[in-house]
């Protein structure tokens, strides 16, 4: 196979008229390759494979009326676009999951009578004289607040200071 003129060596012309595009797995995650090639399904026939090192190989054959160079050029642009979108998604994933999770928690709905029937409301909670069962954030906020308040005349309390994050 020979390189496709005007493109890097990772674009190889196939004997059957198609082209193999090698996408390095460390640069192009599988999701980006799927996404980019999906966008070209109406213009080309696509087959995906991997080499021994786990890199992706996109085999492209233009559909009738399409030129190889145009389809390959479009794939190149789509790949970059898909990689950007994948990175963006990864950065926002936690936020998206967090919002979705909160929405789903709400969507589970209010407890039914069945749920409430055998729930024990009489238990008064935990006996916690050392205030261990206080969330770190709550305790840290309290420590911060205490630190900014004027020094009290009496002993300010026995809670250990928490280290800041």
């Amino acid at each position, binding site marked *: 196979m020979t390189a496709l003129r005007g493109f890097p060596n990772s674009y190889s012309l196939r004997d059957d008229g198609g082209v193999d595009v090698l996408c390095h797995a460390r640069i192009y995650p599988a999701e980006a390759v799927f996404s980019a090639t999906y966008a070209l399904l109406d213009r080309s026939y696509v087959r995906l494979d991997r080499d021994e090192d786990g890199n992706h190989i996109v085999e492209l054959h233009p559909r009738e009326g399409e030129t190889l160079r145009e389809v390959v050029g479009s794939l190149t642009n789509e790949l970059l676009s898909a990689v950007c979108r994948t990175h963006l998604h990864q950065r926002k994933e936690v936020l998206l999951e967090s919002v979705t999770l909160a929405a789903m928690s709400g969507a*589970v709905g209010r407890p039914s009578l069945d749920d409430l029937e055998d729930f024990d409301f009489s238990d008064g909670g935990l*006996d916690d004289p050392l205030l*261990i*069962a*206080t*969330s*770190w*954030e709550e305790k840290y906020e309290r420590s911060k607040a205490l630190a900014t308040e004027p020094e009290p005349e009496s002993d300010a309390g026995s809670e250990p200071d928490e280290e800041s994050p």
Partner: protein
Amino acid sequence: MRPTKALVKVGYGCNDHCSFCHTLDVRHIQGEAVEVHRKIRRAKALGHSMVVLSGGEPTIRPELLAWAKHAAALGLDFGLVTNGRMLSYPKLVAALVRYRLRYVYLSLHGGTAKIHNLMVRSHAFEQTFGAIAQLSGRGLDFSVNCVVTKHNVEHLEGVVDALLPYPDVPLKFSMVEPKGGGKSLFDHLIPPVEHVARRVAEAIEYGESRTEGDAPPRGRWLSHGGIPLCLMPGLEDRFDDLRTHGFDTMTEIGEPDFFPVDDDNKIQPPKCARCSLSGACPGLYTAYYERFGDQELRPVMDRPRSNSFNYTLEASLVDNGPRCAVLTAGLAPWEYGRHLFVKRGDVIERYRSRTRDFSDREISSVKHERGQIYLDVSSKAAPDDFARDLLALRRSSTCTGCPEFTGCTGLFEPVDAPVFERDDVRVRELVGSLRGRVLDVGCGEGPYSEVLASLVADGTVDYVGIDPHPERIAALRERWPWARLITTTAEQLAARTSTGHERRDDDDADPPIGRFDHVLVLRSWNHLREPQTLLQALDALLVPGGTLTLVDNEAFGLARSKEQSHRAESGPAGFEHYRNDGAEQAEALVGRLSLPLELLEAEAVRPGRSNQWLLRYRWAPS
């Protein structure tokens, strides 16, 4: 009986603030008390025997005792995944034990206050360590987990020392996962896994030496998790994870149901594809692999592995129809590969495979892609007559057209189709058509006896068989006096033929074996340590135009009763396969070696066929 645990996350708030916290970004979310309450009931309905609460930190929830009480009222045991600080209160521990507290998995990341507090960013050590004293000696299933980051990797022996006074407390070292805080502070926290493996192995060795001679013996109290098994030579069986702790399902806050525990956060890179340890190996955390690649991995290729696994009967339900019983039970809790629903008349049997000889991915492939699952209808420890002992299982017609077809674990039915005899007919034909000199690699117990005997008798075939097991060769010599049989491995044979110096062993008083018209590798390909060695010797073994026939079996799963599984798993049979190649993998290896082999015939394994594949080549040197 081993408890089956359901893990329920109650929220993500915590009184510690570990730098590597998985749920760093959602710490503000706490689950509704009633949601947890409802899920405890669902755990009971799914047949679990224990519900384990996790978070965040479940013990800071004021509802803790109410949840424990609710679980106990339903007949469930109770467990906690915890930093343990609240369990330093003796009264709380006593109350929880009254509500059937049976399991505690406690996090301790340093053997001193300085290291532990640095890791959890709180003054927590005295309380967490105090909890160990409260929990030890109560007969609980209680273990300590130490997450290994850059901060404590050089101080693991200190954790071992801290636990020496508690002989009933096992300790596990876990590679930190690049998730949540671990991901945000990747460079700050994540050490090279090879370095973690070395330090963990040293800590295990140190702990063993400190407790050697303890009475009663402390046993194998040190384990590891999240570390590829190839980096823990000699300690592979100390691997520990949610499954080894008996967790079957889990549910996060906001999730509508329980889901199977899985390894989706980890990856076995392509390099691991033929590793003998891949079944139970956790591989690498995906985010770690994305950053560092696979250069630290050392796949192990020379150990035998299993070629079958069991699905053991767990429960039977009556099929009331017309609605699918699997859909009615809810799809979420059932594992795609490891669960198996089999419809037998009006009853639907639920089986599950807990094997660690195969990964989830391999099991799913055997079940769904290759279609190689069978109902064992024999009473033998190991079926030896597949045609009589096994019934093939096929996806039920109930599933046809179901919108959940691809994601569902599926409903299967036994079919009385002679798949094994049918697929072997072609092999029998090929053996019957042989002419000239034949080398049978791995002749073993001598199949196709009646076909070969007559060919040798009338002079059509000159047969040479090799097998590495002297006792098999001796037995076969009695049955096949007409055959020339040699005790050797294919690799030894290849070595001596390809160097041109055929050596005579004491056992091998025959003249050099020369070249052959046909080389047969019948159900022995996966028994070869190095099949490439045999292939590379073909130019010295085959005449031009000669043929190479490869036939072997892929891995398969057997649906069995508890008694059948127990009998098989406690039997003496050892592993003999070095891999579970199908036709595709064997063909790929032949292709990689660029040998002058022309493919004549290929039959791969697929649903509707048996687990036997076939490849036939002609040796065509230019």
